[in-house]
């Protein structure tokens, strides 16, 4: 069962306790989201800061770019906005585009992109069970933590089952292309649901039999020191400084 993030080696963000990273990531995303879309150069500042973090984190640009594919639905939505929004129009070649629509699209695109990069950084440097432990340490309500812990258990179970089933299909000459494969894929999905549910139950039993009481033990993650906090908070504080600067310049 694969872990949620690939964690190998130990660069500086990987060594930080999970709760510190969660706070830093959430704070950074908050600042980004709350920044007004104008002036646009602030976001260039944010992007440069994040690029520096990616570069030094050992996560690798390829990982970051390949995981950014989750952003595609946002992009599709944002591209539509200049066409459907109303208000003053600008002419761009043959196109008549709504100016507020363009700004709204820019707003969504840039914030989604930067926010996703921050999330990717967190996910790629923190193992899923550690994320859960981090949330526990931050006193997130138990019920939420338990739901997440269950997801940690099931996500790897489901992906593992799906891999096994795909392999079994492929081994008997099945190609998953075109509408003709859809009935097979649909039935596989049904089977996947039942199989994963049952395996998840067995995994849960095995956890209970090792004394699991609903809280994941904090495996190998020491409590955060003030040094950890000061390292992790550099990111949100720098981003905040850039935001303050832009506000001061635009005043």
């Amino acid at each position, binding site marked *: 069962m*694969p*872990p949620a993030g690939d964690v190998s080696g130990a660069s500086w963000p990987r060594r930080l306790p999970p709760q510190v990273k969660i706070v830093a990531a959430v704070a950074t995303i908050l600042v980004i989201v709350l920044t007004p879309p104008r002036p646009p150069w602030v976001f260039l500042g944010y992007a440069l800061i994040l690029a520096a973090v990616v570069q030094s984190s050992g996560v690798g640009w390829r990982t970051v770019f390949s995981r950014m594919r989750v952003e595609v639905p946002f992009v599709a939505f944002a591209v539509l906005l200049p066409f459907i929004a109303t208000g003053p129009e600008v002419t761009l070649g043959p196109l008549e585009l709504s100016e507020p629509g363009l700004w709204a699209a820019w707003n969504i695109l840039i914030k989604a992109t930067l926010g996703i990069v921050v999330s990717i950084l967190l996910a790629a440097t923190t193992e899923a*069970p550690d994320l859960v432990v981090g949330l526990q340490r931050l006193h997130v309500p138990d019920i939420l933590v338990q739901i997440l812990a269950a997801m940690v258990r099931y996500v790897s179970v489901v992906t593992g089952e799906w891999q096994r089933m795909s392999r079994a299909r492929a081994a008997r000459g099945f190609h998953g292309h075109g509408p003709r494969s859809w009935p097979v894929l649909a039935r596989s999905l049904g089977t996947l649901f039942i199989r994963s549910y049952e*395996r998840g139950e067995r*995994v849960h*039993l095995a956890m*209970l*039999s090792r004394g699991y009481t609903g809280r994941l033990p904090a*495996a190998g993650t020491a409590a955060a020191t003030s040094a950890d906090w000061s390292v992790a908070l550099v990111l949100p504080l720098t981003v905040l400084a850039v935001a303050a600067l832009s506000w001061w310049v635009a005043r």
Partner: protein
Amino acid sequence: MTAVEVRDLTYAYPDGTVALQGVDLAVADGERVAVLGPNGAGKTTLMLHLNGLIEAQSGWVAVNGRRVGPATVAAVRHEVGLVFQDPDDQLFMPTVRADVAFGPMNAGLPESEVAARVAAALDLVGMTDVADRAPHHLSLGQRRRVAIATVLAMDPAVLVLDEPSSNLDPAARREVADTLLQLGRSTIMVTHDLSYALQLCPRAVILSEGRIVADGPTRELLADAALLAEHRLELPYGFDPALTDRVGFGANRPAPDESADQQRRQ
């Protein structure tokens, strides 16, 4: 002292399937007992009771003299270590080390003690080298030994294993056997692998259709061809339990092929 005692245990699954119908079993401290039986006999169901994962519908289970019930179940889970048939059910953490640490951490042990337990357990099963690898990248034999380590790290008084030899190649099968033989604690081994039972457990019981139908020295049970046939148990082709006497089967010694090897070398 009795490590595990089961009295008149019955259990039916919610869909009405009767899995156990009056099981009686007592296992002494330090004893190794094989629970033999065909598929569907109720072996796994019985095993889940020993750890309080299933609550007895009637009858009871006691571990070290303490009845298993809602009040004692937490303590019992630290005394009885269950190794599941499929290691993929047991291993779910991203690394072997984290997985082996899971039980001791649930017990609330301090971190240094957890680390020591993990190291000792991995050493016992010979899996120290893979401590930092992901369980799903290991071979089945390795995963099974890691699964055993996850339980050993909790230092249980009783070890319960479900089909520990299933799907293993002969070398992996022997390595798991070597591991189990050197542990020297009360062990209940559920299996339909009769030669494995003979090698590892001096005593065996036969569970059939939810009842214990035979209980005695493993060698004697296996010599009773009529009894085995009646309960859908079969010895491997060409296997004669009487011939295994000379090479130390069933005794608390390393696997026979190894001791023979050593004698030859000396």
